[in-house]
């Protein structure tokens, strides 16, 4: 009886998963199926890259393309909720940010909030930022820029940054060529 119990105990101990099984365990030899999944993933990435470019060339050719991006630095004085973009008084984007997206923005990510087409000439881009300012006060601010659309693609950055001296957020609209 004792022998049986001890052997059971030992078996349990031996079958106990490695103490830190979730450690980065190196992959053993990859099976043919693994290799096929790898090859497929690479091919699907390549295909998606080609389709991504094709879609853009088709729907948003460079001659009329305009993209609006939202970026943010530390964001101490402003907790962003949403951004609304109007072009020539017509709403083209209204985006509500998740916590995860805000974290990505704070770490240097830039959100392409709108990709569209505009004909050559002058256009007015207006952005409204909604969120909470200092002391958890609701905050809505607008920023306007007149954009001269030429023959090449036009990129507009809506940047939210901290104006440390005034302890206020700052909203800057900038055009990239």
């Amino acid at each position, binding site marked *: 009886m*004792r022998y049986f*119990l001890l052997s059971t105990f030992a078996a349990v101990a031996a079958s106990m998963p*490695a103490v*830190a099984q979730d450690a980065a365990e190196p992959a053993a030899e990859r099976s043919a199926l693994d290799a096929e*999944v790898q090859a497929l993933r690479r091919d699907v990435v390549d295909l998606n890259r080609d389709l991504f470019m*094709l879609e853009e060339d088709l729907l948003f050719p460079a001659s009329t393309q305009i993209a609006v*991006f939202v970026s943010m630095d530390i964001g101490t004085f402003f907790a962003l909720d949403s951004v609304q973009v109007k072009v020539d008084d017509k709403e083209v984007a209204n985006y509500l940010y998740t916590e995860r997206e805000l974290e990505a923005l704070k770490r*240097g990510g830039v959100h392409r909030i709108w990709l569209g087409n505009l004909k050559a000439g002058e256009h007015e881009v207006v952005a409204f930022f909604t969120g909470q300012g200092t002391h958890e006060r609701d905050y809505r601010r607008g920023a306007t820029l007149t954009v001269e659309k030429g023959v090449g693609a036009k990129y507009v950055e809506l940047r939210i940054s901290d104006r440390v001296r005034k302890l206020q957020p700052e909203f800057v609209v900038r055009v990239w060529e």
Partner: protein
Amino acid sequence: MLRKLLIFATLTQGAFAAPVVEEAVPGLPAVKVQDLHYGDVLFHFYQHDHFDALVRLAAYRDQGRLAAHARDSELLRGGLYLSLGQHREAQQIFERMLADPSTPPPVRDKAWFYLGKVLYAAGLFEESERALRSSSGTLPAELDAERQLLLAQGLMYRQRYDQAIAELEGWQGPRLWLAYGQFNLGVALVRVGQKERGLALLDSVGQIVTEWPELIALRDKANLAIGYAHLQAGEPAAARAALDRVRLSGPQSSKALLGAGWADAAAKQYEAALLPWQELQGRDLLDAAVQESYLAVPYAYAELGAMAQAVDYYEKAIAEYDTERSRIGESIGAIRSGRLLAAALQAERDGREGWFGQLADVPDSPESRYLYHLLAGHEFQEGLKNYRALEAMSKNLSDWSDSLGAFTDMVETRQQAFRMRLPAADARLATVDVATINGRRDELHARLEAALAERDLEALATEEERGLLDTLAGVDAELARHPGDAAYEDAREKARLARGVLLWKLDSAWKVRSWQANRALRDLNAAVYDARTRETASSRAREGAPERNAALGVRVRNVSPRVVALAVRVDAAKSAQGHHLADIAIEELEAQRQRLDEYSVQARYALATIYDRATADAPSATSRGTTP
């Protein structure tokens, strides 16, 4: 023998610990973005949307939109391939960067680090070590800490514990990494026989005060390892103290409860041992510790001389083992019919974040009952990861297939619209002669220049003034036909006066008018420029449109067969992967069923032994019972 088994089990080669970097290290330094499109890639990367980040990165790179981040983006591309498990692609990228002599040292160090990580993941520890040691010391603290741990773990996998100890001893790093370093150092020390020092280090990890889930999990693992090591060394009190520190709800809790019972039993505290063992009995019977508890409880009762309870519990164990075996049989049937994967994917959809942790609550149906247990297995997890990737690829290709249909229609519609609108557009363009307008503008410009140079007052006269000037010229001509005639003298004087007044008015208005004329000319210049630009754009659009549309049509047509061919391959791989997963699951469940069979046999044997002894002792009514 038992001691060796325990040490092997608790401090085995796979027992090294490393944190999950992205999840565990908050607040990585923010990036100063110099290309908006690079920022867009990062936006997806930081949300762990690695596939989308990689696709965008590859596209933007080919479109030349990442010029300011050429090296960073290449490093990121390698890292993304690495995170998707595409080791070969990642390795090629890092090697290419290292072969480029212009790569600056900080980027080079990161490339060495990631290359080392790729090689480590592929199990190429020698090569990995060489790469990791090639960093020249410019790595950020977090990466350098990970590098140090990878180095030590690679050595431990090759059983070079002394070298691993040398790497980790005295090493200081960020808190999370330090805890893992101490854990691994403790394991390495135990492996080389320095048990006391090793256990002391593990003990320090086992007593960490933290709210960080990953460190709490590490703390549990350390305490479990210490507990079993003491148990094996015949130190039940020390074992109990360490095992008591393991959380009751964590993944190590069943093993800790089993060990705690054994610690009490080793101290002859059988009643105390019953407490943790009975706690185990309500848990999942596929857990080895739970299976063990069904034999341990009656063993304790037998030791206490409570033979009736021992018999009851052995019978209960046999019944539970039998029920579980039949449930496993049902589950194997369900898995064979292909319902396991649907359940696994459904559980994932319901759980989203941290879905693995929530699988303990999956429905108690044959196909999903053992999911949590199966997912604890590395091979099944990896297989399911592949299956999920294939499922995502299949959906991705299906979506693109729909889009391509729309793209084809779009190109055809554009071609048709172009053909229809062309005649009207041509007719309209024909009415516009920008060259003539341009010529007239040049002529006007020249006239104004001359008038301004000569201060030609009449050149800026209004229509009315011009009429008056013409009238005066007529009067002057008439007067000229009567030279010296005194009868016209009065008229001559009036004409001279009128001309003088008119010229005075023109002279007074000269400044304003010349400014206005200049401005009007500037406006004209702008208008002519716009007209010229539009004419150029129109004719370029007119001339290039058919070719551009045709080229887009060709691209759509060329890419369509690629989508179809890939979809066929993905479906085939998905089906094979599904079968593979079912095989792994069935194999695992069969092994469990066999183990339960063995336990059941052992319980029956123990029961028979008790009955035999009871029969043998029957004449003596005061017998105490068995001595196992």
